[in-house]
């Protein structure tokens, strides 16, 4: 049973690695950030699986923090990192 | 602890930590942009932490040694603080000079490097 759980976790890890290629070739910064969101959700799933397979209940708390972290990165990205380019509409908030 | 070709799981992660430290050090020296230098510093500190936690697993028994864990926890906090400070410095350098790349001219102006 543990073998199956760790095998599924490995499949999810491979899915993360496949998703990395979207970071490599996303035309806009939003595409790259979106791939980071994908890693957050998949990381939560991997942690829940490993908490069951390794019999470590503390990993569910780590999964909770992972879920929070993805949202924080997205907010930081939208508010601080992504300004519209010079040729586009100038509606972003520059400090 | 299972071994595979004479290599335990701990050894695998410790070797990866050494590799990460070397990659980070090389990047810290060769990359000219300040943000890349901060990233390289973070990566090499992650390598050091991997080696330390690998050392913690080498005591016999299921429970790892708590002392390297405490050191790594402290190190993570210190790394985050120094990263925040370095980024604030880099941002003010960018605001002052208009670029955040360490050029040879910058060193020449302060008299650190004399050519010929």
């Amino acid at each position: 049973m543990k073998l199956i759980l760790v095998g599924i976790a490995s499949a999810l890890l491979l899915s993360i690695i496949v998703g990395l290629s979207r970071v490599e070739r996303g035309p806009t910064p939003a595409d790259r950030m979106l791939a980071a969101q994908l890693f957050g959700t998949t990381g939560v799933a991997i942690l829940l699986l490993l908490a069951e397979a390794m019999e470590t209940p503390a990993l569910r708390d780590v999964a909770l923090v992972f879920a929070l972290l993805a949202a924080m990165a997205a907010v930081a990205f939208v508010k601080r990192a992504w300004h519209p380019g010079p040729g586009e509409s100038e509606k972003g908030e520059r400090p | 602890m299972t071994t595979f070709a004479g290599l335990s799981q701990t050894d695998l992660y410790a070797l990866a930590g050494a590799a990460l430290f070397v990659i980070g050090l090389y990047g810290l020296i060769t990359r000219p942009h300040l943000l890349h230098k901060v990233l390289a510093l973070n990566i090499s500190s992650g390598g050091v932490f991997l080696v330390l936690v690998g050392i913690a697993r080498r005591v016999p028994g299921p429970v790892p040694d708590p002392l390297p864990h405490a050191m790594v926890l402290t190190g993570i906090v210190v790394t985050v603080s120094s990263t925040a400070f370095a980024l604030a410095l880099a941002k003010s350098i960018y605001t002052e000079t208009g670029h955040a790349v360490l050029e040879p001219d910058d060193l020449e102006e302060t008299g650190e490097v004399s050519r010929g």
Partner: protein
Amino acid sequence: MTLTSWIFDIVLVGTLVWLAVRVLAEVKLFKSVVLYIAFGLLVALAWVRLAAPDIALAEAAIGAGITGALLLDAAGHMRGRSQPYASASDEPSAGGDMDA
């Protein structure tokens, strides 16, 4: 258990080293930062595999979360490419000096 855990560990470690090289070889600042956030998430998974959930918690909360937010802020402040020995213009000329 043993063979699948070994596959998981080897894939995780290989991805970590590859990501570290990619973060430092990348010319675009924002891409580097996003790759570093992914690197931080995978390092947290490595702590989990090393039976250190306390360090995984700290790394996920402040190592990857706060550092990622700070780096995104800094990358938005100084945007553009990291050209070696060039002025801070946004000219799209690839100037990486590290081939990897």
